[in-house]
């Protein structure tokens, strides 16, 4: 990746000031997204992946606040923009696709109207007819047949998969450079999921857009991503090209996560499981945050490891990986198989 990054996130910290304490949801996250690239942001619930996305869009609501860091889109720090400038970025250069298409669409308005609005909000001098022309074009490009007629339908007249296509069409209205998709296929049935994945991949390639794909589904990651950042307890613990990550994970969490996936090969056997539970983010563990659940933890792990680029180009936040050790060949019997905690 020699190109200038499209998006450059540095040392991002987002906290939630709740009654029961301060939740350090995103705690020093840095990454780049290059033009045309698909970056997967994976992790379990509470790892901070969705809050990272909402921070980029500056949509973190009270009691949450971005307390540190920078988010540069083509060299412009989004954290320095005023509200009106930020509004133009959202739905303009950056657009979003969320998990549940029904909540992204207004149930009381025809979908054509909603698509027109996406155009008019970013073209002050735009006309209704120009907006509708664009809306029809976008509906066609996401595979809605008879787009002119179907634009007059309400969201409830569409199936779940079709609604997600419409949300994607809406995101495409202003030729964005970056799409942030948060679990875009999780709510869909598998045969529909396959259709939507296919559609997203085609649109990204045709329009040379970059995509941040937030998901917990490692199959979807393997299918769609060029590069993957794995998050655990508010931090990126590993970042690598997709093949590298799956073949030779350089963080014990990534290794354990990949081993614990149910698959046909594990039929009838116990699954290797990561022991314990994800940490309480009001009070994350001292030192390496994965240490209490890590089968390889040593004394050195009591010191918090930095995220460091290794010889093979992978970035890892693990002392053991940083002194050259790998995990791919480790015996997964080290993981919790015998008696669940």
């Amino acid at each position, binding site marked *: 990746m020699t190109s200038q990054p499209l998006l450059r996130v540095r040392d991002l910290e987002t906290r939630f000031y709740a009654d029961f304490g301060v939740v350090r949801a995103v705690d020093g996250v840095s990454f780049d997204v290059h033009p045309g690239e698909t970056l997967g942001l994976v992790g379990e619930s509470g790892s901070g992946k969705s809050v990272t996305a909402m921070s980029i869009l500056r949509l973190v609501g009270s009691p949450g606040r971005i307390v540190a860091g920078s988010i540069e889109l083509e060299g412009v720090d989004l954290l320095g923009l005023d509200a009106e400038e930020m509004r133009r970025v959202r739905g303009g250069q950056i657009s979003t696709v969320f998990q549940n298409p029904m909540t992204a669409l207004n149930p009381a308005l025809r979908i054509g109207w909603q698509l027109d609005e996406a155009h008019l909000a970013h073209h002050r001098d735009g006309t209704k007819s120009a907006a509708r022309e664009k809306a029809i074009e976008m509906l066609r490009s996401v595979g809605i047949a008879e787009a002119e007629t179907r634009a007059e339908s309400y969201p409830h007249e569409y199936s779940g998969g079709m609604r997600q296509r419409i949300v994607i069409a809406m995101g495409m209205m202003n030729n964005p450079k970056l799409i942030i998709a948060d679990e875009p296929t999780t709510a869909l049935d598998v045969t529909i999921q396959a259709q939507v994945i296919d*559609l997203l991949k085609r649109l990204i390639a045709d329009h040379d857009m970059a995509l941040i794909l937030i998901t917990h589904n490692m199959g979807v990651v393997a299918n769609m991503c060029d590069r993957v950042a794995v998050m655990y307890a508010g931090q990126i613990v590993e970042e690598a090209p997709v093949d590298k990550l799956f073949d030779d994970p350089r963080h014990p969490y990534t290794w354990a996560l990949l081993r614990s996936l149910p698959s046909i090969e594990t039929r009838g056997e116990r699954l290797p499981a990561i022991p314990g539970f994800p940490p309480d983010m009001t009070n994350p563990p001292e030192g390496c945050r994965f240490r209490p659940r890590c089968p390889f933890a040593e004394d050195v792990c009591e010191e918090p490891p930095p995220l460091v680029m290794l010889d093979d180009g992978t970035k890892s936040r693990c002392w053991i990986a940083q002194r050259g050790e790998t995990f791919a060949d480790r015996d997964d019997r080290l993981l919790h198989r015998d008696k669940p905690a």
Partner: protein
Amino acid sequence: MSISDAGAPVDTGDGTSRALLQLTDVVKYFTVRQGLLAATHTVHAVDGITLNIFEGETLGVVGESGCGKSTLARVVVGLLRPDSGSVELGGTDIHAGDSDAASARRKLQMVFQDPAGSLNPRLSVLDSVAEPLHARGMRRTDDRVFEALDLVGLKAEYAHRLPHQLSGGQQQRACIARALISEARVVVHDEAVSALDISLQAQVLNLLRDLQDRLGLTYVFISHDLATVQTISTRIAVMYLGKVVELSPARRFHERPLHPYSVALRSAVPVPHPAVERARARILLRGDVPSPLAPPSGCRFNTRCPLAQDICREAEPPLTEHAPGQWAACHFAGRFDRTLSAIREQPHDGTAS
């Protein structure tokens, strides 16, 4: 309608062959009214299902939303009464309404998808888990609750906590403890691990396997997630629009699924291997699942089936045995391998028809 001996005793490969639970031609429709003055419509949720479930096995049920798998689960545990057909546990009709039926139903328990939603937020874990005993008029014996909590790996200190003080995985363990406390013999899991994170999913799946070994439980494991179903099941039933379209031993299902929908379903699941994902051609089904309000005539899959012929639109294929223990409802079951691989090669735009 289904053949009456579908799922007749077969060797499941694990030496279990006695049918514990027998479903005979179970039908469950729902009546809905769309709009104020509109006519009523009938949702064909479960449309003639005959299945035998054997002692000690795990029957996986997969299908997409609207296929009737959750309705089937509720009929099996007695939460819904079928319109016709019967569910028998060890020969007792659980919907008969007498005391035998009531005691049979007690042996059928269910674990739901959303553990937070199935625990009373104001009751401690101790009280929630004790409820089935209470419902039977038993004097609450804390000892039995602690025994059940120990069984599912919840420490005694969690007994006095409220649901919101537990993680999702711990809540689901409490739900499993509650299902087991009244001496369940069959536990129906309806998307029981779907809401959990991957690392906790593996823990709970292992726990389910342990409990099955230790207590000799029989499971019906319902999920939309084929990978999970394939890991845990002895046999797999694939549902489509209220019907079982394939019923196969898990090993056979993995090696050679018989129904084109099973093949497509497997093909649609992305696997966690980037090189494999890039190399393979996927069978993309066109369009959406048709509405269960008006299922297509003939084979219900014909509108999306890449192989559909005239006969598929005219005659509904019965569920028949094509290989030992392997049943499918398709006019071309097992005869389409070559045709399907040809379809796989075709470029596909993935758009709806």
